[in-house]
């Protein structure tokens, strides 16, 4: 399933359009950055409540095409700027991690 299809199905707000046609192979949910650094795999989406620039730094280093920020989190200005530079899709969900993960799991399991 592509990033674009996931945006539609999960009713996500898109703050930086990038990688919309990228096929998503899975997802990793964590707010611990070293956990993501050590364990997320490239091509996965990242679900988190962190909203600072190191999120996009890690997404870029790990080849993560899209980040879903949960609970209507607002990304820092410099995180969004960085996402534009690095071509990372930034998405926001109204729902919490549990709900986002559950729905995403149903879509791409």
């Amino acid at each position, binding site marked *: 399933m592509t990033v674009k299809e996931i945006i539609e199905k999960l009713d996500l707000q898109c703050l930086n359009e990038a990688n919309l046609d990228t096929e998503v192979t899975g997802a990793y949910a964590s*707010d*611990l*950055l*070293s*956990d993501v*650094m*050590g364990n997320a795999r*490239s091509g996965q989406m990242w679900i*988190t409540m*962190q909203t*600072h*620039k*190191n999120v996009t*730094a*890690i997404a*870029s*280093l*790990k080849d993560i095409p899209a980040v879903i920020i949960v609970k209507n989190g607002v990304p820092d200005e*410099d995180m969004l700027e960085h996402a534009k530079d690095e071509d990372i899709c930034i998405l926001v969900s109204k729902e919490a991690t549990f709900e986002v993960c559950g729905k995403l799991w149903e879509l791409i399991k």
Partner: protein
Amino acid sequence: MHYTFDIERGNFTDAGQASSSVKRTLKQLGVDPANIKRTVVALFEAEINAVAHAYGGKIDVDIDGEKIVMVVADEGPGIPNLDLAMQEGWSTASAKVREMGYGAGMGLPNIKKNTDDLKIDTKVGVGTTVTMTVYLT
């Protein structure tokens, strides 16, 4: 090839620039993606450690056909108990650093897992030098 980057205390905003730049270079050199991934995970973690704990420092990266050697040298508090620091889950990070999602005690273990050789020279009250090697062959 030799690259040098500065580390500024507490500057999380620019953290990751060295790893990002090294990643671009390795891609251009056609290095195997698995080795690129290992290298950037280790370098990013070491960079964050220095930003979070030290007073400043320097990163030196040397790349040749056989290996990548990364030396992250800081002036800082040093590590009083290296065995403890290598344990997963052990951390002395501040509340602010933890709020950002760091300080889970996974940095040094991540570095160890992703490098072929890891050497840590540390002196309390002076600083820490982390030397990481990734072999390409």
